[in-house]
């Protein structure tokens, strides 16, 4: 039987983090194995083929497609400049003369005798891939990219928007259950990764954008505020490409929710350090969660901290579904047999002691393991 509980989000003080940095197409790797890199260092580069333009010469010149090549003043493969004359017809007694000029600077790639179409291509566009993490290049993927490794703290959120950013970690609230207010954000947070408590609102997001904040991290957000901030509603949990001025990482879920104490305390202890963050989320096979990586120099270990992956009596858990959504607790019993719950579904359950002392039955699918809180 497949595991009936969710391994929690990874929150670790010291872990080896490896990131594969891969170009979208083949290119050139610019660093060596073993080289130390900073987040903004370019590690690989490729030339993306320029944007193509099609030009229907037959229509524009009133020619049959097969007659287009004989009226061209340039040949396939020639470089062309914007405005350059590509083709001309003489007309009759000087009347009805037609000219065709290039709309772009680039290359004439193809001339079609069937459609009378010209394909012109703009100059190649260089794409540069940065290291993202401060660390060491541990592997070269020839022509494709590199693997960068670092050691430090690693925190996964549950959901995020916005791509990779780097900034200094700054705490904006004093406790994990304190909502982030507009007054908490100021000019001192320019270029910072700002950590709030239980809730981030639309007003806070706008103020943070105005102040030049790189990223915001908080426990929860109202669904409607998120839609207003990014300008549309997210339908499928695949994010990271949004065109927004800052990256947002939600650690717990939608609605006001105190950030897990351990996450908050860990981030608090690392205030002032450089954090690499990425809001990209993909909730499906090969789950990708948003993350914060905070390299801690001089404490590099090759040992990975293993996440609690087995549910036992005494395991701290977070409950992730109604009617206990957002509560933390400790497992007190794990009956092996299937039990019938209120919906009449027969599932595996666990008994969980809530902070109030009350003990409740919860389907194992509705809890996430916490690695010691």
């Amino acid at each position: 039987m497949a595991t009936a509980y969710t391994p929690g989000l990874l929150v670790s003080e010291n872990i080896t983090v490896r990131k594969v940095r891969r170009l979208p197409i083949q290119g050139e790797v610019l660093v060596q194995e073993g080289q130390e890199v900073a987040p903004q260092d370019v590690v690989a580069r490729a030339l993306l083929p320029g944007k193509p333009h099609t030009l229907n010469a037959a229509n524009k010149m009133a020619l049959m497609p097969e007659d287009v090549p004989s009226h061209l003043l340039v040949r396939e493969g020639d470089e062309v400049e914007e405005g350059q004359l590509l083709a001309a017809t003489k007309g009759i007694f000087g009347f009805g003369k037609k000219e065709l000029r290039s709309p772009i600077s680039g290359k004439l790639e193809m001339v079609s005798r069937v459609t009378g179409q010209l394909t012109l291509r703009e100059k190649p566009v260089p794409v540069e891939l940065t290291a993202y993490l401060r660390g060491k290049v541990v592997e070269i993927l020839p022509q494709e990219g590199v693997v960068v490794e670092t050691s430090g703290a690693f925190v996964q959120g549950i959901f995020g928007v916005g791509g990779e950013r780097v900034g200094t970690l700054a705490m904006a609230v004093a406790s994990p259950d304190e909502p982030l207010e507009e007054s908490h954000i100021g000019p001192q947070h320019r270029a910072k990764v700002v950590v709030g408590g239980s809730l981030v609102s639309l007003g806070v997001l706008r103020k943070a954008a105005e102040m030049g904040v790189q990223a915001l991290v908080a426990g929860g957000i109202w669904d409607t505020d998120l839609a207003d901030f990014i300008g549309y509603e997210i339908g499928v949990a695949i994010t990271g490409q949004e065109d927004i001025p800052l990256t947002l990482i939600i650690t717990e879920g939608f609605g006001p929710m105190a950030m897990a104490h351990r996450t908050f305390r860990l981030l608090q202890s690392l205030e002032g350090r450089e954090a690499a963050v990425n809001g990209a989320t993909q909730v499906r096979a090969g789950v990708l969660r948003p993350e914060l990586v905070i390299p801690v120099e001089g404490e590099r270990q090759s040992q990975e901290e293993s996440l609690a992956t087995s549910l036992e009596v005494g395991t701290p858990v977070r409950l992730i579904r109604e009617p206990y959504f957002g509560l933390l607790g400790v497992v007190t019993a794990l009956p092996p047999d299937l039990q019938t719950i209120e919906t009449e579904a027969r599932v595996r359950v666990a008994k969980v002691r809530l902070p109030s002392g009350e003990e409740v039955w919860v389907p194992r699918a509705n809890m996430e393991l916490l690695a010691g809180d």
Partner: protein
Amino acid sequence: MDRILATDCGSTTTKAILIEKVGDEYRLIARGEAPTTVEAPFEDVTVGVLNAVREVQELTGRRLLQEDGEKILIREGNEESGVDAYFSTSSAGGGLQMMVAGVVRTMTAESAQRAALGAGAIVVDAISIDDGRLPYQKIERIRTVRPDMLLLSGGVDGGTVSHVVELAELIRAADPKPRLGIGYRLPVIFAGNVGARRHVEEVLGDVVDLRIVDNLRPTLDKEVLGPAREEIHDLFMEHVMAQAPGYHKLMEWTSAPIMPTPGAVGLLMETVARQRGLSLLGVDIGGATTDVFSVFRGTFNRTVSANLGMSYSMANVLLEAGLAQIERWLPFEVPPAVLRNRIRNKMIRPTSIPQTLEDLMVEQAVAREALRLALEHHKSLAVELKGVQRQQELSAFLDYEGSGSTLVNLMDLNLIIGSGGTLSHAPRRVQAALMMLDAFQPEGVTELAVDSIFMMPQLGVLSPLQEEAATQVFERDCLIRLGTVVAPKGTAQPGEAILHARYPGGSVELKAGEILRMPVGEGKELSVELRPARGFDVGSGPGKAREVTLTGGAVGILWDGRGRPLQLPADPRLRRESLWRWFEALDAYPSMPRTVAAGGS
């Protein structure tokens, strides 16, 4: 062939089934499952396959793996250990993502779409000369989408060449790269006008991996999808699967090529419909997508609604349907912001399950809308061929707006098969039946069933090779028959008599606005005479009587007088009361206080 092993490598779980011949018939002996291991840290699909098979091995006590446990054991004779054949399907790694192109949106581009969907692909975009986009927009789209392969069609044989070549030129200009395998050439299948082949080859031959097959629309009134579909399957094996971790090993193990999961399900549906002479509708509601399969008038169609699902695309159901459409299925009031947050929280924690009854109802309300939207989508693509009546030059159809009528006829529909966790694992079977009734609104007399453990993919891949084994196991071990619904088509004021049904030893009076449940168990039948009221149709025409045999099942026989189209009271209070009344009449949920109100976030 007496012992057959089959696996389906899904994106999260790999499922194995063992089939054996017991006496004269094939039966399911055991099933096992294990997490799919395509992703890190394993990056080898065979690890999950071996784990799933190991579970079957432990459950049955039969040795199915070689001694080192590293490979499936294929036996030569009738030895005690091993299997006679092993098959597999796969949808891991995002399945097969395709882009299609054709000259006219409603004709060759649509035929190309049907070919790709029928082969089990997700169609990420359909490009056509008349799709309203400018050439550079189409090029940009081809460049950014990065499909696994592209199917180019266009032109009947002897028809347009220049439009087809224009599409080929767009593809060349885009210089598309495949999603997997950096540095590989994108596979492109050309299934268009034979007269354009030479030109297409000239334009594309040196930049993509070009394959040429028979025209999928050789004449306007003929659609021939087989050759294109087969080429898609071959390329799926050669390119897509070969790029996925561990698949080269798995490909060596199987007794027949690995198929994309939905392609295999489609094959099974086609086989069943052909054998039993049925019109059927199949639906698989998953976490990310909802697939709809249909066979009407012998024509098979499949659509995939890529972003309608019950977990990570659940919020998209909210977006496409709107909150009010979901709320209308709830018998209690929930503050809109709370409902929205709840749906989003399921999206980000997709493996969680409803613990409270109220939460279960919310999920089933979303499922109704996902199913309804998926059927709408399906109806728009499962259509008669367009343009058949007008024998003109193909280019004359560029502005042709006429649409072929849909093949989906809910009155002709004989059987609905539901699968996917929400339907197959609904705590009460009647909940699955009701979700399908509300979402699809079948008319007249329709049988309902659910797939017990989703083994249709494995049976599908088996069906072309061992049709008998596949259909026997499907009928006996895979399908759970829920029963039959009788739903007169038409509307009337609540309380008006709309149907009188007589059967040996009894009768039913059905009134508008009510739904009744009659317990008739599996394997039992009821011969009835249906006499609809004036204006109501049960399959023989408005007001016309019909004699029919209804089959029972886990739910029994349902008499649905709620009208077609289904009438929900506009007033929220009355609507909620109606829902409670229907739930009670069907014994759909355990009793709960009607005043329940959803709280929390």
